[in-house]
């Protein structure tokens, strides 16, 4: 990183330098006395005023051109900023619009920016600049340039944008220098808890952090880099403290490179290195684990997604510029320079009313976020106090040392699905309910996620040290035809999984990304481990979402076991229908490791066709049955709960199962939920009755867009909307985790599992089509 932040007080690239190309003529001809001009013409232009005019004119033209380029540049940056605001801040474009226009001032924009940044640097960065060398040292430029998904490609192409790097540096400095300040973003607080030393949680709460975060997706990965330097560890061991850039170090990790699981994994399933990191960092954590000030700016949707900054920025195509925004906001367009510069320069503590407003908003949001954080903390404290007499001051030390795993039986008393129906009046249920409630409200905060995933998916119990590596090895040498045909399909699909994500497909270097190999190993191992289930298209999508969502805080081994637990214990099982029309399935009995399955098996009675009852099949072996469920969803629940929408869609000829079936077989990943929401939905699935949730969430997604759909009179358009929910920026914006969960909860209260199995019985006959 060559650009020191102090040298570059320009938020918008090297613009000022390129513009100020003062020609030999000097700029002040008009102020000179006529005599001098005449002399000039005589000396330099051979008494020919025409050539002077020519030169002036051509200078003017080139400056004009530069100006236009500059405007375009700023406009495109603004577009990105707006998009990021929308994505991470849950702001509607109207709100952003309003804020931006409230920020406009009459003064010359560049002047204001330079001034603001100048004083910002003086007041905040100068004091910490001495840290810069050591920090930037650890930040490999090429790595950071690899980290940002498709966005970084743009960046690489455009040298002007290099100053963004300067921003990163500045941000990093701010982060590492944080102990001297007060409060931090949600992201940093969480992250600090999860494993950074030194970086306290007390920063001054300012919107600058979040704005910077929003401005550049890279910034959410790079800040972690500095921390990792304190903990030298094997590159291919995913750690809490490292994120994307480090992971890219291990880009060519192959199965044989991985250390044997037993060597680095303790009995709780944690990497020893992770434990070490967290232990050290917990010194800092005990200071004040509660503070979590997010500067993440939201208004009306304060409650929705406060942890979004934690989430990985790299979902499929999530980084494309929204053309919708540019089309719908002429105001912003016309005022691009002004608005952009001021939106970005905001962090400077000026006393404008806009700044106050933003501060207010961010404060409001901080409080909300704080509330959630407190609730989580209270929850864990309560658990520890009631059941373990653990001094609460060591709470986080305990959690990250792995003591929480002892809480397993309290968190997960066996049968989550039956809890709702048969409430047991003991404290265990109460605590489970609290957890459920918390997850419903907000999802699992990122630092707890690895741990709770391992808990709630049963991965911790399932995991056998060393087994994963063995399975991968077995897969690579297997000659079993069933395994081979599955592996064939896996191989066909690997390069077709998230091809637009740099972690899967490193287009820059023309090779697969690290997650490609991680996904490969997980699928290989799974195909061997559960050869009766094998590989089913859709798994690739779900697992790759898990890999991205957990942000390399869990190894592929852990993800594998989480996946096994999810498929085996949590996803619903079906009773096979062996009627003549169903495609021969790879038969084989499942080792049902969980008792909870039994409650989920839908009884099927024999009827006119050759329906027989067999042992339950896994979700991914039950495509015909899943297809039947789509009919129940479309023909039974839909008219029951949304009669108006149903009638409308019916009228224009929509086949709902065309939409919902893909949602189901990909568990809402395929063209459905954006990653940052999906990851929370996955949190939720771990404590939900998934069978019910598949129905209720499908209904909720339609309910969520009900008013929009009612306005559409064209079947193609409805398909277009509902089959591209996470592709289309306008629908994406309107998906909110909290709202979706509320709506689906509402449906769940009205849906009876008995009802579902009754309908299944009816439809298990030769399909009435």
């Amino acid at each position, binding site marked *: 990183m060559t650009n020191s932040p102090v040298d570059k007080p320009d938020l918008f690239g090297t613009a000022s330098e390129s513009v100020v190309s003062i020609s030999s003529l000097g700029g002040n001809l008009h102020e000179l006395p006529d005599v001098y001009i005449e002399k000039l013409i005589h000396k330099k232009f051979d008494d020919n005023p025409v050539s002077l005019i020519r030169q002036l004119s051509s200078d003017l033209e080139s400056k004009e051109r530069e100006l236009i380029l500059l405007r375009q540049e700023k406009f495109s940056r603004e577009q990105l900023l707006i998009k990021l605001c929308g994505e991470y801040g849950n702001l509607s474009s109207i709100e952003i619009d309003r804020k931006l226009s409230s920020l406009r001032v009459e003064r010359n924009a560049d002047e204001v920016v330079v001034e603001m940044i100048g004083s910002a640097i003086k007041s905040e960065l100068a004091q910490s600049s001495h840290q810069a060398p050591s920090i930037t040292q650890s930040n490999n430029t090429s790595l950071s340039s690899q980290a940002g998904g498709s966005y970084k490609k743009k960046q690489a192409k455009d040298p002007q944008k290099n100053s963004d790097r300067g921003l990163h540096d500045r941000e990093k400095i701010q982060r590492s220098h944080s102990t001297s300040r007060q409060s931090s973003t949600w992201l940093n607080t969480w992250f600090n808890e999860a494993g950074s030393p030194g970086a306290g949680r007390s920063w001054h709460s300012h919107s600058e952090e979040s704005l910077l975060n929003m401005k550049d997706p890279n910034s959410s990965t790079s800040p972690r880099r500095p921390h990792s330097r304190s903990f030298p560890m094997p590159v291919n061991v995913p750690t809490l403290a490292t994120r994307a850039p480090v992971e890219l170090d291990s880009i060519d990790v192959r199965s044989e490179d991985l250390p044997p699981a037993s060597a680095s994994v303790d009995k709780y399933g944690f990497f020893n290195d992770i434990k070490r990191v967290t232990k050290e960092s917990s010194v800092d954590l005990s200071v004040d684990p509660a503070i979590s000030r997010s500067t993440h700016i939201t208004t009306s949707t304060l409650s929705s997604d406060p942890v979004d900054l934690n989430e990985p920025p790299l979902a499929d195509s999530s980084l494309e510029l929204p053309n919708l925004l540019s089309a719908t906001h002429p105001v912003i367009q016309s005022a691009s320079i002004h608005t952009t510069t001021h939106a970005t320069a905001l962090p400077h503590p000026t006393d404008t009313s806009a700044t106050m407003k933003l501060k207010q908003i961010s404060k409001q949001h901080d409080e909300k976020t704080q509330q959630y954080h407190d609730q989580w903390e209270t929850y864990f404290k309560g658990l520890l106090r009631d059941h373990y007499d653990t001094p609460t001051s060591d709470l986080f030390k305990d959690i990250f040392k792995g003591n929480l795993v002892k809480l397993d039986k309290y968190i997960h008393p066996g049968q989550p699905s039956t809890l709702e129906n048969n409430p047991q009046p003991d404290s265990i249920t109460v605590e489970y309910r609290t957890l459920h409630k918390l997850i419903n409200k907000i999802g699992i905060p990122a630092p707890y996620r690895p741990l709770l995933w391992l808990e709630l998916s049963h991965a911790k119990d399932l995991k056998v040290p060393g087994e994963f590596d063995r399975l991968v090895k077995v897969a690579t040498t297997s000659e079993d035809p069933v395994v081979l045909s599955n592996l064939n*399909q896996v191989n*066909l*699909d690997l390069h*077709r*999984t*998230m*091809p*637009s994500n740099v972690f899967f*497909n490193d287009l820059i270097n023309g090779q697969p990304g690290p997650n490609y190999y991680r996904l490969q190993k997980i699928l290989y191992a799974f195909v061997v481990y559960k050869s009766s289930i094998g590989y*089913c*298209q*859709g798994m*690739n*999508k779900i697992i790759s979402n898990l890999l991205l969502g957990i942000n390399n805080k869990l190894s592929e081994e852990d993800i594998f076991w989480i996946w096994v637990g999810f498929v085996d214990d949590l996803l619903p099982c079906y009773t096979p229908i062996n009627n*003549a*029309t*169903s*495609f021969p*399935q*790879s038969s084989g009995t499942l080792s049902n490791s969980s008792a909870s399955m039994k409650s989920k098996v839908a009884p099927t009675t024999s009827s006119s066709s050759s329906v027989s009852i067999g042992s339950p099949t896994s979700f991914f*072996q039950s*495509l*015909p049955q899943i*297809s039947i469920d*789509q009919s129940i969803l479309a023909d039974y629940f839909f008219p029951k709960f949304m009669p108006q929408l149903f009638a409308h869609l019916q009228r224009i000829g929509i*086949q709902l*199962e*065309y939409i919902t*079936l*893909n949602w189901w*077989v*990909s568990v809402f990943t*395929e063209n459905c939920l954006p990653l940052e929401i999906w990851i929370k939905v996955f949190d939720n699935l771990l404590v939900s009755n998934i069978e019910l949730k598949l129905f209720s969430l499908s209904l909720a997604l339609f309910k969520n867009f009900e008013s929009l759909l009612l306005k559409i009179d064209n079947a*193609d358009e409805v*398909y277009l909307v509902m*089959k591209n929910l996470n592709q289309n920026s306008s629908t994406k914006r309107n998906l909110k985790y909290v709202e979706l969960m509320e709506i689906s909860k509402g449906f769940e209260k009205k849906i009876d599992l008995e009802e579902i199995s009754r309908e299944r019985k009816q439809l298990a006959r030769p*399909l*009435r*089509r």
Partner: protein
Amino acid sequence: MSGRKKTLLKVIILGDSGVGKTSLMQQFVNSKFSHQYKATIGADFLTKEITVDGGKQVTLQIWDTAGQERFQSLGVAFYRGADCCVLCYDVTNEKSLNNLASWKDEFLIQSNVANPADFPFIIIGNKIDVDESKKIASLQKKLNNVTSNQLGGLNYPVFETSARDAINVEPAFEVVAKMALQQEELNEAGNDVSDDYNDAINIHLESESSSCMC
């Protein structure tokens, strides 16, 4: 009969995983090719309006399906109401050619079409842009075996295409549209009832011929 309403023709593309079904559909509908298509999960479709048979406007609804075998069991949901079926193989992959017959059989079972014997199919061999050396050895002979009435029984029009280089894609789908339109008109003529009862009416109209080698 179908004049008053815009005719919607449903076309299903079937074939082994990776033969290029998505690419074919994208090339035909959007005239583009990408090396980065995702594996198709479940099924998806795109629509395109074209003109066939001297000025008749039709909307082709082209269904791109997952190639993995187990997804065939979803055919009941997706194949319903199909007017034409495209059987797709990869000219570099012999297995995909040999699987055409089972794709056809499975389609007929799943779709429950009224007149299976006369249902219009078309065969597309994709990826002809690849090196000759990579292609199936003595492809023509093997293809003849598959399409001969005696051996493979898939006596349907065959097109060799390259979705990458947009070779022959358009002509193939024009034939698809023509065949689908015929099928649709047949269905409309014989079956006004909705498809609630698939066993109800089994029409045998002799005029339908799907075996025109083009």
